[in-house]
């Protein structure tokens, strides 16, 4: 049985994750991997529950692909353990792979095979009973919208978007508990990204999906939770809202009003000395300027800011809304914090 690992081993991992009361279907416990003298991942622990879609983020060289390859049984870890559906990947790789669908980065496919031939071959390799191969392949193709256009086409003639769909259809074959997708939207145009996103979102609830990507808005829209790695370690883990509270402790608001920056600062700073006001210097033709107001999340002013401003500048406010920090800001903050910690520890 898997060791009782938890994400609390890593900074930023103390966030409670609702889906994880049940045993995790993906679990990494203190994974380490070194290539020669270079450490690719170091004491990396993570857990993903059944039905969760989890984004796996990190800068280039952070150890995402290495972790995914270890979880997929393609590469042994130097130390630590990985489990798929509770099966130790290092000791029983074939059994673990029966529960896994994996789409590697760049999704290599045989150019000379037809889509249906390729998927039938993969289904047989994954142990799908002979009688069910055709039905299983048809089902996967249906879900990935491959049936009409590409069924009989050579893989080598497919567009990048359809190749990615073939890769995802392959990952779906055999009814896995876990699907690991390494950069599934890389190189796709916005239409293709949209359709792949829909496809992945539809997988949620049934299988656990671990998905790495550099396109952070995509991850934010698709995933229930994100895990951010940097320099081979988990630096943050949790829902976007939880990470926002942890890493970006300031609330941001956008204001468009016919007032000056100085007047705004004169109003806000006496009430909240930690407030910040940034704005465009030049007013529009109607004297309206746009401002970004920053306040500590814990500030009492944050909750009733609009009423406070409206009271001070009646009739002069044209637009007001809260601007929550997106995943990109969280990602940058989390990775910067990691680099700063690293620099401090070296000193």
């Amino acid at each position, binding site marked *: 049985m898997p060791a009782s690992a938890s994400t609390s081993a890593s900074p930023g991992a103390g966030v409670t994750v609702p889906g994880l009361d049940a045993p995790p279907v993906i679990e990494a416990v203190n994974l380490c991997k070194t290539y020669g003298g270079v450490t690719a991942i170091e004491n990396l622990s993570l857990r993903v529950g059944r039905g969760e879609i989890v984004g796996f983020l990190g800068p280039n060289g952070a150890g995402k692909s290495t972790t995914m*390859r270890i979880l*997929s*049984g*393609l*590469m042994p870890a130097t130390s630590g353990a990985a489990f798929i559906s509770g099966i130790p990947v290092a000791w029983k*790789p*074939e*059994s673990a*792979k*029966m529960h*896994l669908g*994996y789409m*590697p*980065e*760049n*999704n*290599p*496919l*045989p150019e*000379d*095979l037809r889509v249906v*031939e390729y998927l039938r*071959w*993969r289904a*047989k*390799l*994954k*142990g799908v009973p002979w009688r069910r191969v055709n039905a299983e392949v048809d089902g996967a193709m249906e879900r990935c919208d491959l049936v009409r256009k590409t069924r009989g086409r050579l893989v080598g003639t497919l567009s990048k978007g359809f190749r990615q769909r073939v890769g995802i259809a392959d990952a779906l074959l055999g009814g896995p508990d876990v699907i690991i997708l390494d950069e599934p939207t890389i190189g796709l145009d916005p239409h293709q990204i949209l359709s792949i996103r829909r496809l992945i979102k539809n997988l949620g609830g049934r299988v656990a999906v671990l998905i790495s990507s550099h396109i952070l808005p995509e991850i934010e829209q698709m995933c229930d939770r994100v895990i951010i790695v940097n320099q081979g370690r988990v630096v943050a883990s949790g829902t976007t809202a939880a990470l926002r509270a942890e890493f970006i402790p300031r609330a941001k608001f956008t204001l468009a009003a016919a007032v000056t920056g100085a007047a705004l600062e004169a109003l806000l700073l006496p009430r909240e000395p930690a407030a910040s006001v940034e704005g465009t210097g030049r007013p529009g033709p109607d004297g309206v300027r746009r401002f970004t107001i920053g306040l500590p999340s814990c500030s009492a002013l944050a909750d009733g800011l609009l009423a406070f401003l409206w009271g001070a500048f009646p009739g002069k406010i044209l637009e007001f809304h809260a601007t929550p920090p997106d995943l990109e800001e969280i990602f940058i903050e989390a990775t910067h914090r990691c680099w700063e910690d690293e620099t401090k520890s070296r000193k």
Partner: protein
Amino acid sequence: MRTFRVLLAHELHLLAITASTYIAAAVFLGLTGFLYWFSLHQATDPSVNGGPTPVQSWFGVFWVPALVIIPQITMRAFAGESRSGMLGALFSTPVRPFQVVCAKFVAAYFFHMLLWVLALLFPLMAYWLLPGAQHSADGLLPLPTLLGGFVFVATSGSLYVATGLLASSLTRSTLVAALLCICALLLLLTAGSLLQQINPGLHVATDYVAARASYLDTFRHLDLFLRGIVDTRPLFLFGSGTMLALGLATLFVKNKA
């Protein structure tokens, strides 16, 4: 066993649909056809009396097509698939490395032997088509030589194909794999002869070295087979060499995915 069958069927299917298979077959058959024609031409030279039969001469240069075809059919097996990432994708399914190696070996060996079976049509065609050939069957179609030669290319071929796969498992470049394969085949073909030539200069354990050199001498074994004598020692040599090469290839492939 099911996984092996699925992998083997896939490899054979890929061989059947890939253009390079047909190019390799055309090159092999063109070369063996030319070599047979050349052997036939030499045998009809009136200045040569009591020389080898055309079939003996033809099998005597078996290494020429072997050096051309074996790198071609084995170089992409692991090197090309490793570079493209296909090997990694394959190992994300519940397959074992030795199943993959065995499937690729059986498919490549099958193709190699299929080409030799087709090449045997050249002596048969000469026998049927050349005027007066059927009156001198011993010269143009000596059955013991033909069978012995075929058994030799079949057994030695397994070692050479396995060596090609081992070379392919060592690198990610198909070109380097082909060059490694050619070097390894040349070494296997000439090791016995070279050892015998340098043996007198070694001054140590001369008899032991001579015996080993003789055992490794491919062309001495070929000579026996072409006389219709099927010796079990070379069968063991080629068989154990094949197992060793496939075992090593499995180890390398396991670490390569």
